[in-house]
């Protein structure tokens, strides 16, 4: 499936490029210029904004106010921790949910290519319906009068005053659901290439099914696990739709994305929003580089 290509496909080993010419420059220049102009420069202007000082009249001026960082981090420490906590939980659940699914599509269903592509289409189907509408659909389904709460209360698994929406559990649920395809596709692309003879060899050597899975299948699918977890964790940590109060969140589930959004677009406190953005970006880059290095899949990038 072509769409799986964006999942950090590790097969694309460069055929050693031999030629060196001005053509490369011509091909690279417009795109790279675009990236510098609209990605690097904005990051720099975000850093500049994050250090601006606020005058008495409320306007912002160039400055070097490091306290923008310390103030906003200490004020919103809860939201920062919560964002990474939610993202981590959602990533783990999405991995546990997706692995068997990806294994079935990529390994078990190999003999039936039509079924395989049918199931892949089902996995990516959520991509094609509006992200906001499907989150709102969950909001209605999980709402206090919705089928899930009614059923749980009927089974006495939940008190009559219990909620799902507005609670952290709903936000984590929404994050998990929305990023499952991002987890599933890279897992599928590595599992699809898994050489089954290694599994046979393992069981021929009297390894139990569990030992084979743990020592052969998982290590061989590690590139997929790494890119899947990154593709889930990064957008989940910065998301502010699921945690928005009009969607699945409530007052006790605000994430860092919500804080950045409201500081930037509502309160127009640009330095605070910029400082928090830089913190979020920095933490994610540190996590990504440490994670990728420790799992030994640098060539993935």
């Amino acid at each position, binding site marked *: 499936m072509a769409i799986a290509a964006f999942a950090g496909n590790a097969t694309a080993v460069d055929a050693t490029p*031999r030629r*060196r010419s001005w053509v490369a420059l011509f091909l690279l220049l417009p795109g790279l210029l*675009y990236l510098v102009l609209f990605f690097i420069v904005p990051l720099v202007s975000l850093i500049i904004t994050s250090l601006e000082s606020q005058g008495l009249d409320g306007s912002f001026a160039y400055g070097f106010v490091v306290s923008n960082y310390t103030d906003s981090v200490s004020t919103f420490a809860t939201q920062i921790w919560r964002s990474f906590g939610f993202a981590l939980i959602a990533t783990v659940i999405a991995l546990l949910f997706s692995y*068997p699914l990806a294994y079935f599509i990529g390994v078990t269903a190999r003999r039936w290519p039509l079924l395989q592509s049918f199931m892949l289409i089902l996995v990516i189907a959520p991509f094609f319906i*509006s992200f906001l509408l499907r989150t709102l659909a969950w909001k209605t389904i999980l709402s206090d009068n919705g089928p899930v709460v009614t059923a749980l209360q009927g089974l006495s698994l939940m008190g009559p005053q219990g909620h799902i929406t507005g609670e952290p559990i709903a936000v984590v649920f929404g994050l998990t659901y929305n990023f499952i395809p991002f987890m599933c596709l890279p897992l599928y692309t590595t599992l699809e290439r898994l050489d089954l003879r290694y599994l046979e060899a393992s069981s021929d050597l009297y390894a139990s099914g569990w030992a084979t899975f743990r020592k052969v299948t998982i290590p061989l699918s590690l590139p997929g696990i790494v890119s899947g977890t990154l593709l889930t964790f990064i957008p989940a940590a910065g998301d*502010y*739709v699921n945690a928005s109060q009009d969607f699945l969140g409530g007052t006790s589930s605000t994430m860092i994305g919500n804080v950045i959004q409201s500081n930037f677009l509502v309160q127009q406190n*640009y330095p605070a929003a*910029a400082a928090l*953005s830089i913190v979020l970006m920095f933490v994610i880059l540190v996590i990504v580089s440490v994670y990728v290095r420790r799992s030994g899949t640098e060539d993935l990038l």
Partner: protein
Amino acid sequence: MSAQEGLALGRAYASEPGDPRRRQRFTLGKWLLPLYCVLAFVFLLIPIVYTIAFSFNTQTGKSNISWSGFTLANWTGVCDQQDVCAAFGTSLLIGAIATVAATVLGTMIAIALVRYRFPFRSAVSLLIFLPMATPEVVMGAGLAAQFLSAGIPKGIGTIIIAHTLFCLSFVVVTVKARAASLDPALEEAGRDLYGSPFAVFSRITLPLLLPGIMAAALLSFSLSFDDFIITYFNSGTVQTFPTYIYISAQRGIPAQANVIASAVFVIAIAIVVISQLVTQSRRRRLTSARP
């Protein structure tokens, strides 16, 4: 022991086919995994079915939450809600322009990365990877801060700039994967036969890359069409389909929004299914043509 050695040893000490342990595991996995997958697919499809079903709901109030009877009125009168239709049109326009821009720029970079040698190669790769590792909210805030300090008013133009930016890296990755799988000898053959660089590109490279480019364009369009977070930071007063839904979420989404989302869903799935069938039939033809 390396996996290769393990493989060789495994063949040498192949166990009896009637190993009871193996048979038991086989039957258990045989039923459990498919059952799990069916349930997982049902779970994944719930909100989709819900959204499509409520596009047929008779709308009573402003919101479209409780079921009050089947109707086709929302489908026949999609543009009765002018805001929805206008937002949809804006999204299509932005998606089209951003897709073309990102696909052209990204394809050029991908070809350069695969076919040419140049200095600062790893820096270039990093520059392409970074936007994909950046949370959308950071990218959106960064662009908005830049537009703010440069005094550029937010509008359709700024949304297109933002969408082209986040689609670009995905285009590079998608087309690069395709370009890397091409045999450079084909282009060399073209040059050996005195094809001009332009002829080699337009008659050999481009047709071979086309499936990858098409996939990248499709991906770009769906990313652009569904983007909310970056758009919201850079849209100003312009409403795209997602920002319309976000703003209307408080007072209730009209059923017409469900109609548009459902129609887009059906068209997208149709495109994917058709392209999949074409690829498979082509593959079958190619394999059967081989001696």
